[in-house]
């Protein structure tokens, strides 16, 4: 029980800090001063206190917002944090579907508002996930085949025990490429595209409802960085205790910085370009899978 509460606490209250560092770093690349490190906290706090703007066509209200945050936190419980996950039996497919549920909630909320921008954003988000989700699940299935288990705990353990393997590195690289779109960062922030769609599905949202989605998004960022670093890049191997935690924090920051760097130096692509690009990444993930099948 303590582990569960601690994990939820860490995910909710520490992940905005990582977002803050990421933003600061982006500002540095842009030669700006950038917002203070704690800005994401102030953003969430301010949104929680603002008026809750609702569309007159809304049927679902803020329900999808609560569910989406809850689903992301539940998914976070399955992911190993430190040395083990809060819920050790965490199953890969359950994780995939919980994350999927969270994004369905976002899309439903967007359509619920009736705004044409939201519909456009929803369409783009769904299309992005058609090509990005396969990378995610093929990479994770590669890990599952290698470790003979669908549980994250066993997958994270695998490279610690049997050393680095080629297939895991290839899938890890593919997953890293997919992360950019999974987290709606440039050049793949097509669903939100502030310049043209005013935030896509979030076009009509404000106040606490929007805060739920922002917060969930920040949590999702950390959860995915954790999966990538824990399962695919567990180096340096053999750390224990406080060192393991420290290494993990550094690695998550590294992933965030890397994602932020790509975000800072790229212009936005069109959706068809993104789809074409990710077909290539899917192929790469499949190569990783084939390597796993032949035992590499």
């Amino acid at each position: 029980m303590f582990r569960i509460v601690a994990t939820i606490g860490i995910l909710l209250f520490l992940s905005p800090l990582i977002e803050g560092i990421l933003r600061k770093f982006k500002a540095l690349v842009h030669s700006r001063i950038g917002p203070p490190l704690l800005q994401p906290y102030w953003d969430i706090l301010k949104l929680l206190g603002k008026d809750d703007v609702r569309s007159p066509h809304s049927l679902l209200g803020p329900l999808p917002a609560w569910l989406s945050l809850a689903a992301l936190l539940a998914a976070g419980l399955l992911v190993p944090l430190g040395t083990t996950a809060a819920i050790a039996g965490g199953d890969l497919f359950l994780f995939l579907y919980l994350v999927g549920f969270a994004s369905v909630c976002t899309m439903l909320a967007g359509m619920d508002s009736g705004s044409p921008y939201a519909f456009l954003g929803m369409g783009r988000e769904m299309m992005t996930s058609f090509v990005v989700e396969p990378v995610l699940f093929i990479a994770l299935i590669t890990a599952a085949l290698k470790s003979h288990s669908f549980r994250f705990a066993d997958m994270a353990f695998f490279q610690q025990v049997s050393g680095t393997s080629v297939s895991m590195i290839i899938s890890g690289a593919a997953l890293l490429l997919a992360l950019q779109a999974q987290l709606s960062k440039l050049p793949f922030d097509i669903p939100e595209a502030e310049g043209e769609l005013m935030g896509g599905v979030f076009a009509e949202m404000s106040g606490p409802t929007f805060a739920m989605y922002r917060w969930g998004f920040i949590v999702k960022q950390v959860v995915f960085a954790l999966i990538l670093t824990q399962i695919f890049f567990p180096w340096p191997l053999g750390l224990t205790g406080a060192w393991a935690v420290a290494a993990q924090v550094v690695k998550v920051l590294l992933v965030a910085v890397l994602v932020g760097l790509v975000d800072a130096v790229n212009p936005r692509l069109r959706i068809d370009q993104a789809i074409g690009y990710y077909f290539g990444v899917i192929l790469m993930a499949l190569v990783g899978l084939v390597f796993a099948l032949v035992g590499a």
Partner: protein
Amino acid sequence: MNLTPYILFSLAALFVGAAATLTMPYSKRTVGWVSLAFQTLAGAGFLYVALQVLLHGTFNPERPLFAVAGLGASFLLKVDALSAVFLLVTTVVSWAAGLYSIEYIKHYKESLARYYPLFLLFLLGMYGVVVVRDLFFFIVFWEFMTLTSYGLVVYEWGNRTNVNAGFKYFLMTHIGTAGIIVAANTLYHHSQSFDFEALAPVMGLLRSDNPALLHTILLLFFIGFATKAGIFPFGDWLPDAHPAAPAPVSAVLSGVMIKMGIYGILRVFLGMLPVSSFSTVWGNVFVAFGTVSLFVGTMTAMFQHDAKRVLAFHSIGQNGYILLAVGAGLLLAPVSPPLCAIAMIAGLYHLVNHAMFKSLLFLTAGSLQYKTGTRDLDRMGGLGKYMPLTAAAAIVAAMGISGIPPFNGFVSKWLIYHSTISAGFHTPILLLAGLAALFTSLLTMASVMVKYVGLAFLGQRLPHNRGVERDAPAGMTASQFVLAAFVLLQGVLIVPVAAALYRAAAGLLTPGYWPEFAAVLDASFGGLRLDAGAGFSGFYNPVVLLVAIAALTLVAWLFWKSGGSKKVVMDLWYSGEVQSPQAVRYYANSYFKTFKQHFNIRVGRYTQEGVYPAWKLPKVRKPFSVAHLLDIDSWLYRPLAYLGSKGLELFSRTHSGFPQWYLLWMVIGAAVALVIMFAVR
């Protein structure tokens, strides 16, 4: 325990119900209630039979009720756990559809004499198929089911599209059934019996004596059953026939009838065919057809804008999932019995789940049609605010079909992924199939959860739907909630369901072939754990998940509430302009267009939208006469009434008002009476 009386009672109840509703002169609603009463009687009987079988084991009487000596057929009953599962599914889905019909069918102009009697006989056929042990009577009931459902598909027989769809259905399923009949007769030639239990050893003999013949027989069975199950490319009738039928009939067609194809496949390929190299061959075939079907069906659904056509294509896709799991089970049977068991449980679980959520989706599509008068998703929108109950039911069903935990679709998909991907090392085809299934699940989510629900229920109300102010009648929403409850229950009570399905599949095999249930799935946690068998480890406990989601939602709600912000309703923002709902509408065609373009088939200048090449049957006149035959009004009642009234009109002319004529009539009458008297002497 002798269950024969219960089975016969239930079948008789349906038959009597059909006769009663055929002749009833009361209001549409009364006839509906009477039909539902008979259906409930029959359902109660079969429910009792199914529960008895699930609790106390197979009911398998030695002696047939009667035999047709000349044909070598005997009416043998048998209800094992597999039949019991089908009885339960049929009862639940058809009962909800029956309740739904009472209000729904009122908006049709056509005569009810062609609806309820056929509906009840259709149920009789489906129940009959699963309770007999004799291939001859199996085919008899099978035909019964096909013919009555044809009558229901062409219920609106004034509509040419429907009649053509019905004819396509009639033709294609009969080609399939012809194959089944040929296969059955060939087997009879070797066994001198149609008894399922006598056919199994014959298949064993043929396996060594004449493998080519056995493969041919199995091929015929496969094509016949796959046609019924809507498997691509045999199930081309399905996307036309489902939209043509009235919604409750579509629900039963899609929820139960197409599953009878899977029932037949299980009976023949698992129950009769001994586990051998033949299982491997046919397992591969099933996996290939299942995978193609699930991908093609679901992908094509994304191109549709007719509500029921979207759902019909999903039936092809979801049946593909079931066939894939069954095929995986066959393929793994010689290799790894525990994985085989998981795959079979997965297939049956998905079958049971699909029955619930797909029939529920068809019922919601029916409610949309009832309220808006159209099935075109482009002509409805934002109805959720006016039909909240229907919208809730549709969202629950969409959660089920998309496999969102803790709804039912997740459990079966989870089992399918586990059984196929675990086998990846020794059978890579299954790994590929598993990946395709995972990807397709995403497409399912996109086209049901996002597209169907989004277009019909969310967003702005279109001017076309201005008349829709209230939800569908209570009877219709109530029946939807019955099914919605099952969608949730089957997702939460997974241990008893999985145990029952394990027994259903295990009963088909030689006893002892499969490991015990506890050795396949570890259920000691209240959830299911998979590392007991040969598969990889995995774990799912819906109750814990439900509690966790509820608690975390509460946490999110507390934060949401904490700022004390107030709700402000504001009009939509169109960059400062004013726009009508149609002008800013995101039409069905626009959904995922960029992605869909990758799946158009181009041959030269010809472009096929989507990946499902449909066969266009030539326009035919024939079906009108068949439909005419079923329209008793037009060839029996109306001509009789016409003749009657004409005759009476002639008779009334005798009343001319002149006394001379009356005297003449009296003389003629007396003469006729005399003639008769002498003649009788």
